[in-house]
């Protein structure tokens, strides 16, 4: 039974990293939102499985929150915003797909090397080490996505994937006390509200979500 639990957790975490790569590849907004929803689903499955294998009931709540918020509500809201702004067919990526993907691969390799080296002495449990390594790569990929995207919504989605990586890492660390879950959820909630407020505000001001439009307003212009 031990072997099977490890394989499933390993599969789900790897799936999450794969989905991050897929999202890097996406250049259509609609596709991006759908993949993000899938990303959240896989995350909740992984956390749920962690809860099952560590027999820690509170992880179920986190999995539920991840599922409800990140998989359903946020993608639907983002989709509605996209449609209203009429931006959903926009294609935007900076620096081309291939270099981004290569950079993604490099980052994953780096995170694996760093985390495996760092954790080899401490936890005998391979699952925790795997989880941390994958979590770090999801975080780095999320950050890469934020860096290479020009659109405000895609940046927010990048940030969301970064948060997903955090939840994966938190779940991976056995016995992480209750406080951390609440905090992650708390940040998701707040992030969404604030982003929402800004998006509407931005739309009211510039009628476009493109961050480039935001930048001329910067103070101290020469």
């Amino acid at each position, binding site marked *: 039974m031990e072997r099977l639990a490890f394989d499933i957790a390993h599969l789900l975490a790897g799936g999450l990293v794969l989905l991050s790569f897929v999202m890097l590849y996406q250049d259509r907004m609609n596709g991006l939102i759908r993949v993000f929803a899938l990303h959240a689903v896989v995350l909740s499955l992984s956390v749920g499985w962690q809860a099952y294998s560590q027999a820690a009931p509170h992880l179920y709540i986190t999995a539920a929150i991840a599922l409800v918020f990140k998989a359903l509500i946020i993608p639907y809201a983002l989709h509605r915003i996209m449609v209203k702004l009429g931006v959903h067919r926009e294609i935007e990526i900076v620096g081309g797909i291939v270099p981004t993907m290569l950079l993604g691969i490099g980052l994953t390799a780096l995170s694996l090397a760093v985390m495996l080296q760092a954790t080899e002495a401490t936890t005998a449990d391979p699952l925790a080490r795997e989880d941390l390594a994958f979590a770090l790569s999801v*975080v780095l990929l999320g950050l890469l996505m934020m860096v290479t995207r020009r659109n405000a919504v895609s940046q927010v989605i990048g940030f969301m994937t970064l948060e997903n990586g955090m939840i994966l890492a938190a779940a991976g660390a056995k*016995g992480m006390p209750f406080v951390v879950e609440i905090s992650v959820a708390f940040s998701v909630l707040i992030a969404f509200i604030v982003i929402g407020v*800004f998006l509407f505000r931005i739309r009211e001001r510039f009628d476009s979500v493109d961050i480039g439009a*935001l930048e001329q307003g910067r103070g101290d212009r020469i």
Partner: protein
Amino acid sequence: MILDVGQAMTAVLAIPATAALVLVLIPGYRLPAALNFLACAATFLSALTLLSGTGATGDYLFVDDLNVVFVVLSTFVGLTTSAFSASYIGHEIAVGKLRPAFVRFYHAMYQALMFAMNLALLANNIGLMWVAIELATLTTVLMVGLYRTSEALEAAWKYFILGSVGIALALFGTILVYVAAQPVLGEGYDAMVWTRLMQKAAGFSPSLLNVAFVFLILGYGTKVGLAPMHAWLPDAHAEGPTPISAVLSGLLLNVALYAVLRFKMLLSVNEQAIKPGPLLVVLGLLSVIFAGFMLYKRRDIKRLFAYSSIEHMGIIAFAFGMGGPLANFGGLLHMTMHSLTKSAIFFAVGHIAQVKGTQSLAGIRGLTVSHPALGWGLVISVAAIAGLPPMGVFMSEFLIITSTFARAPLLAAALVFGLLIAFGALMLRVSDVAFGEPDGPVGPIEASIWPLYLHLALVLAAGLYLPERLVSWFQHVAALLG
């Protein structure tokens, strides 16, 4: 009603929390401002009683030599800033730059920020500290966007994105620290309590701690505003309302640096882990020299002093990076002096911007002629921040530079170069702003000058005479910091 230390600790948190909730319900502006001031006063008094005790450690909160000074400092600066903000925001509404609707949640956010900062300082749990700093960031994001101008929105958006990324990295660092502590302290709650972590830190795996420290220094470093991660700070200061800039520069940067200090203490206990010193020194020097050069081309007075905050945070990081009793003592003293002086500067800048109706340096001339009290207040406080002797900042810089010069002459020379560059820029701007023929509106202002001169008096006093108690605290903590 003399509270003992435990009660005082809870009071310091309870008062701002309840005040925040109460203020959400009250509309209008006059009453909330007064209530805000009273809440801050009450918090400050309860923080004072903390001084009397010898420190207490609870499950979630604890008081020791390091955070007691900063709690008192942040409540004091919070108090004076609330007094300043009462007259500032009143004037902004009167002038019409701020519609009452925007200000609806201002005081509630202010108290929430106070609560978050006190919680971060007193938290005995690294997770709880992270939550508190996250809350502080989010409240300041909302307040930076208060004016709803396009620049304010852009600054708030930039602050949110960079802040959140920083906080996320810090969270990952915290998780790694938990993972490192888990085998020694067992699962669950114990592996995140500061006091236990400090006792058992020697047993943690050094390699994991190193990776954790990388994430923590980058995460909380973003909140401190060190060089590569500083981008949010100048715009957040320039576009947000001035009381928030004062609180941001005076306190929030200190709280974030306090967090970095805590983790540096953790690493210094564990020998095999890499010494965090060189990393902090590099970041510090980079910030000092980078900010020094950026001061020259600034056109907005608040952005000018925002870069000066980055420079001073760089000096403090440099001091803690160098380590050793003298440099650490200088660093701690510099944190206190910088927050007092920088908030005084922002008080002056706030009123100057209101009087002249503009924040651009070109539009402000001859202040010492049109508004002597305000003009000379600005000149003295800028002289203080530039590190000229009679004021306190000079004593900390004196200790930092002389102690480093004996051990690493080149580093001290680089720091002095950065200081001189920054000094040149600051004095160039002040001599244009404060002297010369006054132009633009010169109407009288009903500004509250006493917070500005109260801070300057404290800084001058610290420059000449440091009370025995404060010295013993700093020396004890300096030894702890390694």
